[in-house]
């Protein structure tokens, strides 16, 4: 799922990473639009170093396979597609779910990640199923597929769900801890960071099967509302480059680099 929208000026922290040793490739530095922070896909360590799953995948694709220089550009998620089409950057790598609406505006690479919309509640909560969600308050991030999943759930429950939309996902988790919402709907991997990190002991996933099991996907043991694939977004006139990146993506899946990166962030 994805993400978000953010607020307003994000302090303009353009975290530009440039890696040395990429002299042989084309002269153009590939600039990558991304809504940072979205842990564990793109975030800065306390030392200010940009890291995350997307960042490592970019390193493997551009520095490793294509011998190109690249840099990340901080942008806000709710305007990220217009920004790409305006030419502010060449591609988007921002844990972006492939969906039909976005597909009309941009072209996506082959999927490089599968995510599930899951529900996080406080440890003491008695919510164990979708039906238990009737009448509660749910926190989501603006403009994300999590917000979309919450909207879908609201319709399923006959409108009996109150949705609070936050600018960034940490705000939604704060609201959960601060008793302002009773559940947060968001991508499983991002939520897992919180459940096993700052929220450890205070919050838990709602367990059970769901959309993932229905689609026969190899899903985590949580109640899943939807199954989504992440893709790298390109402008619609950038087919040649998109094919190159698809090739590189296949190559890093083949040689084990992808698994290495995956395990670094999502093992266990």
């Amino acid at each position: 799922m994805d993400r978000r929208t953010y607020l307003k000026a994000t302090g303009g922290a353009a975290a530009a990473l440039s890696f040395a040793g990429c002299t042989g490739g084309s002269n153009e530095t590939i600039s990558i639009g991304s809504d940072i922070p979205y842990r564990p896909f793109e975030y800065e360590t306390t030392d200010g170093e940009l890291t995350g799953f997307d960042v490592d995948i970019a390193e493997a694709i551009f520095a490793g396979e294509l011998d190109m220089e690249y840099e990340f550009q901080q942008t806000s998620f709710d305007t990220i597609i217009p920004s790409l089409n305006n030419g502010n950057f060449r591609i988007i790598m921002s844990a972006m779910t492939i969906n039909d609406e976005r597909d009309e505006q941009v072209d996506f690479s082959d999927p490089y990640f599968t995510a599930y919309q899951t529900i996080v509640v406080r440890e003491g909560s008695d919510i164990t199923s979708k039906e238990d969600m009737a009448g509660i308050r749910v926190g989501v991030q603006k403009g994300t597929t999590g917000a979309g999943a919450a909207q879908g759930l609201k319709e399923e429950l006959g409108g009996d769900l109150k949705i609070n939309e936050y600018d960034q996902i940490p705000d939604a988790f704060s609201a959960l801890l601060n008793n302002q919402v009773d559940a947060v709907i968001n991508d499983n991997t991002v939520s897992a960071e919180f459940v096993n990190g700052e929220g450890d002991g205070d919050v838990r996933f709602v367990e059970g099967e769901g959309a993932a099991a229905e689609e026969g996907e190899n899903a985590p043991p949580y109640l899943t509302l939807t199954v989504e694939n992440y893709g790298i977004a390109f402008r619609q006139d950038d087919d040649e480059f998109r094919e190159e990146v698809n090739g590189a993506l296949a190559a890093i899946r083949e040689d084990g680099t992808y698994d290495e990166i995956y395990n670094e962030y999502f093992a266990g």
Partner: protein
Amino acid sequence: MATDTGRQRDASVLDKLDDNRFRQIGMLGTALFALVVAVFISYILLARVDYPLLINIIYPQFTFAFLRVIGIILISGVLAVVAGVIVGLARVSKTGLTRAIAKGYIEFFRGTPLLFQLFVIYLGVPQLWPPGQFPIQGFNYYAAVIGLTMNHAAYVGEALRGGIESIPKGQMEAARSLGMSYIQSMREVVLPQAWRNSLAAIGNDQVILVKDTSLLTVLAIPELLSAFRQVNSATFDAWTPIVLVAVAYLMITIPLGKLIRMLEARADPAAGGEH
């Protein structure tokens, strides 16, 4: 003498010419500007706005967002003026401590961004409780009203201080010498005049308060900008919701401006007001 007069006449002819040309340039400039704006707005309204979508989002999203914003403005606006009078009186107090505290209050609330103050209240305060224990439900609305009130009370207080200080000291002294208490002199003599002098500044601040409600989007309050962002991120259409947001804010700020000018006229004795 003759030369002097001649020079003076020359100068005034020049001045006249310049004034005329100045006026013409001004008219031309504003007419051009108006034309460009009219063409631009027509283009937006005719070519960029998706009317079926517009109709679709007016109700319920934008209508509820609009009513919600009006509710928050009414409550915060009234509270900010009431609290601002207290801040203003404290600011001109004869007691050093009271004055210093009021000064510190104003420095903080005018010296830090409202957005930051909203985060302090909304994220900071509930964390004083253990996780999940914070007792107030729907705290985002309380945080919004508290934040807007405390911030704008500082501006109203400062405006009122200016108003009070513009009243000659002799007025207070005269009232006191007639045997009125400090409170009576303030209430009967100084404040009515100070109020008139501060009214424009306080009115301006109320208009700013209206616009500040846009910040509440970060508190997950579905106000007008949230409605805009929701529509925009779902449809990628910017201009349709932009038009609605602009109309909604102007529907509040233009009548509010009129109301303030009316109050000013009423408070002005030269215009036959009550006082």
